[in-house]
């Protein structure tokens, strides 16, 4: 049987629970996986009212963590060099720290995304970066718009009906007395 789901995002860095976003024909599904069990949250295109996006500080915090790592490894590296030793271990640690520091910076701004439907506002933990959100939106926005096209038509009909003044019936002819 063909898998009806296509992966939209991979899980951001987290401990214990992994969250992915998957795309189906008429909905998106957030999967929370612990390794032993999976929980599914579906959001149908016709029910989605909007997305709240706010910038988070995770990028700064991770940069601080990797920055401290780089400083410590850099000091060890410099210390070994000044003692005329070959700084193999500290060089490896320095490269690891620099790699993660650059990677975290290049991935772009971190964000929190909330999806608003008729019945709930839920956080999409599977989207952690602004760039990922833009990529996902570029994929699903046309699908949501297409699924809600009938709502737009209904709204336009309502608006047209409201703008058109009601027809006033012609008064009956005056009877000559």
């Amino acid at each position, binding site marked *: *049987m063909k*898998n*009806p*789901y296509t*992966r939209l995002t991979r899980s951001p860095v987290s401990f214990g629970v992994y969250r*992915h976003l*998957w795309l189906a024909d*008429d909905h998106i*599904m957030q*999967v929370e*996986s612990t*390794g*032993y*069990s*999976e*929980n*599914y*949250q*579906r959001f149908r295109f*016709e*029910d*989605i*009212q*909007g*997305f*709240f*996006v*706010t*910038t988070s500080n995770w990028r700064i915090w991770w940069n601080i963590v990797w920055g401290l790592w780089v400083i410590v490894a850099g000091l060890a590296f410099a210390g070994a060099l000044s003692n005329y030793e070959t700084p193999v271990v500290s060089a490896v640690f320095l490269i690891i720290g620099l790699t993660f520091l650059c990677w975290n910076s290049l991935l772009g701004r971190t964000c*929190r995304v*909330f999806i*608003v439907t*008729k019945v709930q*506002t839920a*956080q999409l933990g599977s989207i952690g970066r602004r760039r990922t959100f833009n990529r996902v*939106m570029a994929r699903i*926005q046309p699908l*949501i*718009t297409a699924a*809600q096209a009938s*709502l*737009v038509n*209904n*709204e336009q009909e*309502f608006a047209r009906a409201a703008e058109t003044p009601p027809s006033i019936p012609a008064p009956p002819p005056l009877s000559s007395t």
Partner: protein
Amino acid sequence: MFRGPALPCPACRRTYEAIDWIDAEHCRCLRCREDFDFISFPALSAKSEVVRPQAITFAEDSSCFFHAENQAEKLCDDCGRFLCHVCAVPMSGRTLCPTCIASAKKNDVQLVTSRVVPGGAALLLAVLPILMWPITCITAPAALYLAITGWKKPQSLVKPRRWKLLVAGLIASLQIIGWCVVVGGLFLNSATL
């Protein structure tokens, strides 16, 4: 001042009045001071349909299975029960009654909300204890049990593959064979002595 939709703050989930709309795409929560971008869709401003069931007017009218006083307007596509406007739930192009939705929740791909996927657990149980090999005499049978019982269980909706179960079963079997060889060798040694 822009008048935006009446939505609660998603971050602090405070009152509806907490959100201050700057324009249609930007707002700020006055309580938690969080700034938001908002992307809206037509469903936000769409008028919600008010469902009103029809009361039975003639004695010959069919009544809803769940509400005897309401006139039946639809049939459940699964069980065929008569349903009023309130009980008929549209679901992926079909009309279902609440009972069918409740019973289908376990098996229907469109409705299932959680699943146990023993593949990952079986693989971890088979591989990780190798670092502390003496405990594999307990974990290997457990991993094999998970691999066998998990084979027929419904798999993950998004990654319906059984390779983890297969690998876990193979590794666990090898560990069990290893233990059998060791124990058998010890037994034979003690018997010959």
